[in-house]
């Protein structure tokens, strides 16, 4: 896929909708497409967080590894949403596992290289981070709601 096709692909994703052309081009250079089969791990808790993914189609589960038992699904990511933001937060290691639950078509972005560019291109950093912050806020809010549910609603 050419760089321009990659840019159009990015712009077509809800997550990067409205991103300035120059920024889309910069991200497009670091982007590739990837397929994941059922059960395939995209990343593993504790490993270096050097990528993130946009889900074009499919379903990805965010799982928590619990010693002595099966992994626990704590979040799901559907079409148009993003998987992975640990690459933005030191020490840049994954906090959870991510696993495809259905055959998934993904956009794979080299986050380590993108992070390097933030230092020399603050606009790029701003445009990316302003899209990640609402995702982080939404997931934090969802986790808090479920915590309140666990405390106030009976099992």
């Amino acid at each position, binding site marked *: 896929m050419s760089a321009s096709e990659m840019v159009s692909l990015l712009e077509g994703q809800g997550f990067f909708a409205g991103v300035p052309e120059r920024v889309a081009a910069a991200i497009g250079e670091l982007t590739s497409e990837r397929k994941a089969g059922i*059960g395939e791990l995209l990343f593993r808790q504790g490993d270096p967080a050097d990528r993130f993914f946009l889900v074009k189609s499919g*379903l990805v*589960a965010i*799982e928590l590894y619990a010693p002595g038992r*099966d*992994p*626990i*699904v*704590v*979040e*799901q990511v559907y079409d148009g949403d993003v998987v992975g933001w640990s690459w933005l937060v030191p020490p840049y290691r994954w906090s959870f596992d991510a*696993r495809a*639950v*259905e055959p998934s078509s993904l956009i794979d972005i080299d986050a380590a290289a993108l992070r390097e560019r933030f230092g020399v291109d603050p606009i790029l950093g701003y445009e990316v981070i302003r899209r990640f912050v609402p995702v982080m806020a939404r997931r934090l809010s*969802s986790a808090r*709601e*479920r915590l*309140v*549910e*666990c*405390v*106030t*609603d*009976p*099992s």
Partner: protein
Amino acid sequence: MTPAAGAAAAQPAAREVPALDPMVPRLFRIERVRQEVAGCFSWHLKALDGAPFHFLPGQFNMLYAPGIGEVAISVSGDCRDSKTLVHTIREVGTVTKAMAALRAGATVGVRGPFGSAWPVEAGYGKDVVFVTGTVGLAPLRPLIYEVLNRREKYGKVIVNYGSRGIDDILYERDLHVWRGRFDLEVHVTVHTAPSGYRGRVGSVAAAVKISRFDGGNAVAFVCRSEALTWPAVQALQDRGVTTDRIYVTLERNMKCGIGFCGHCQFGPTFMCKEGPVYRFDTIERIFAIREL
């Protein structure tokens, strides 16, 4: 039977005030005990006097375990079945734990029905959205039954239900049946699930966000713990449902059931009489007052 009598039979009229002394329990026999999920069971009751029991969806009864005490429990069966009274009870305190030990054949006392009902007709011509979680499905189930009985009068009907895990889903059989209908959208979400689970994981509010309904022409019925009623209302408002089209059911320490004792006072209202079902805009102001 005359046509008028037939219509009356099709849509039973509930007594808003019990005809008998409301402080004297009627005796019912437990016909069947059904274990729903861990710590939660349903009673199927028959009146010893054989008289029918009429109620409206959303109303509650005071259930009496002889020698132990009374608790307020919403009716969770079908309001068109006046011969069988169904209550789903969660074991949380002394009385409900004693109730959990009772078996089929035991006799219990019932006072009621008490309180306000879900306004079934408020949704005519509109989309209907149910928002509930865990055992909160019990007070809503009679309304869901009734909406399905009158299905042609509504637009889209959507059930959003959440539970902690896949083993805590109340009325799973009902949810399966409802999900199989072409005229009903059912979203079941859990807090956590085992790896490989293909159902939805997340909060109920998140399920509301993805439900397909017209917020500008929808009515919503919410049964959540009070701490979670507000996030549910906010999620509905985000979808365009105004608070005059959102109905919630609340919970207080009901005792007498007829507004005498004051245990369930909620601002200027007694929840056992004016509640437990409220249109949210009528309580929105006092809902935010922590001291209440």
